[in-house]
C-alpha cells in the first residue's frame, strides 16, 4: 500500500495535466467533501423532529465565525461541483465542444468566481458588522404577522432590548 501511495502523490505533483487535471482534482475533492458534510448534516437535521432543543443548541455553534466560514466553503464546493458537473455533462453529450475544453474550464472558474463574490459578502459581512444578517427583513415581517400587531404601528426590532417594565410607584402612606 505505502509505496503505491507515495509514488501516486509524486507522480501527481510532477504530472502537468493543466486545466483538465486541476478541474478533475477539484471536482473529486469538492464531491467527497460535500458527501462528508451531507452525512453529518442529515444526522443533525433529523433531530429537529426528535430533539428540537438540541438542534437549537447546535445552531448557536453554526453562528460562530469558524462555522460561518465553513458554511461558505460548503457553498463554494456545491456551486463549483454543480457548474463543473454541468460542463462535464455538456462535453459528454456534445463532443464537438471538447475542442474548447480549456476555455470551458476557465469559463467555469469565471462563473463560480463571480457568483462567489456576492455570496461571500452576504454570508460573511454581517459577522464583521458591515451588513445586516441575510433574511433580517423577512424575519421581522414574519414576526410581525405572528404577533398580529397593527400594521401601521412601528415595531421594535427583535434584537432591541426590551423596554423597561413600568413599575407603579408604591403609595407613600396607607390609610
Amino acid at each position, binding site marked *: *500500500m505505502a509505496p*503505491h*501511495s507515495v509514488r*501516486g502523490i509524486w507522480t501527481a505533483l510532477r504530472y502537468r495535466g493543466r486545466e*483538465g487535471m486541476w478541474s*478533475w482534482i477539484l471536482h*473529486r475533492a469538492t*464531491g*467527497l467533501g*460535500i*458527501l462528508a458534510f*451531507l*452525512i453529518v448534516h*442529515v*444526522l443533525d*437535521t*433529523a433531530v*429537529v*423532529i*426528535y430533539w*428540537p*432543543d438540541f*438542534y*437549537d443548541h447546535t*445552531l448557536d455553534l*453554526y*453562528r460562530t465565525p469558524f462555522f*460561518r466560514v465553513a*458554511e461558505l466553503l*460548503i*457553498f463554494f464546493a*456545491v*456551486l463549483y461541483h*454543480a457548474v463543473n*458537473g*454541468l460542463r*462535464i*455533462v455538456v*462535453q*459528454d453529450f456534445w463532443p464537438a465542444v471538447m475542442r474548447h475544453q480549456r476555455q470551458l474550464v476557465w469559463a467555469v472558474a469565471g462563473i463560480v468566481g463571480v457568483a462567489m463574490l456576492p*455570496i461571500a459578502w*452576504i*454570508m460573511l459581512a*454581517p459577522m464583521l458588522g458591515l451588513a445586516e*444578517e*441575510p*433574511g*433580517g427583513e*423577512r*424575519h421581522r415581517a414574519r414576526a410581525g404577522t405572528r404577533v398580529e400587531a397593527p400594521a401601521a404601528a412601528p415595531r421594535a426590532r427583535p434584537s432591541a432590548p426590551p423596554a423597561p417594565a413600568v413599575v407603579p410607584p408604591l403609595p407613600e402612606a396607607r390609610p
Partner: protein
Amino acid sequence: MSGAKGRGPARAGGGYGRPAGARGGFETYSWFFMRISGLFLIFMALYHLVWWNLIVGVEHLSADLVRERWTNPFWRLFNVGLATFAMLHGLNGLRYSIEDYVRRPGARLAVKMVAYTVVLAALAWAVFALLTFDPAVPRAAA
C-alpha cells in the same frame, strides 16, 4: 491500472468518457445515473443552499422554523428527493474514488462495505425521519 477491477479501461480517458462499445450493464447505468441525478441536484441543492443560507439566514434558523416548513408535505418530499439523489450520487462518486485508490481486493471490499453502510444508513435515517414526521404532534411532546 490493470489491477483495478470494476470500471477497467473506461477510466483511462480522464474518467468521464463513456466506455467504448459498452452496451448496458451496471457501469453504463451508473454513468447515466451520475448525469441525470447531477442535473436534478444542480437545481435542488443550489435552491436549498440559496434558501437557507441567503434568504432565511443561519441567524434566524430554528427548529421551529424547520418544523413549520415541514408541515407542508411538498417540502418533506423535496427533502426526501434531495437527500436520496445527493447520497446515491455521492456514494457512487465515493465508489469511484475507492476503486481508484484502494488497490488490494480484500481492502477494497472492506472499505466499500464500510462506505456503503455509513452512507446508506444516513440516507435511511433521513428518509425515515422525513416520512414519519407528524406536524400535528407538538414540539414538546415529540
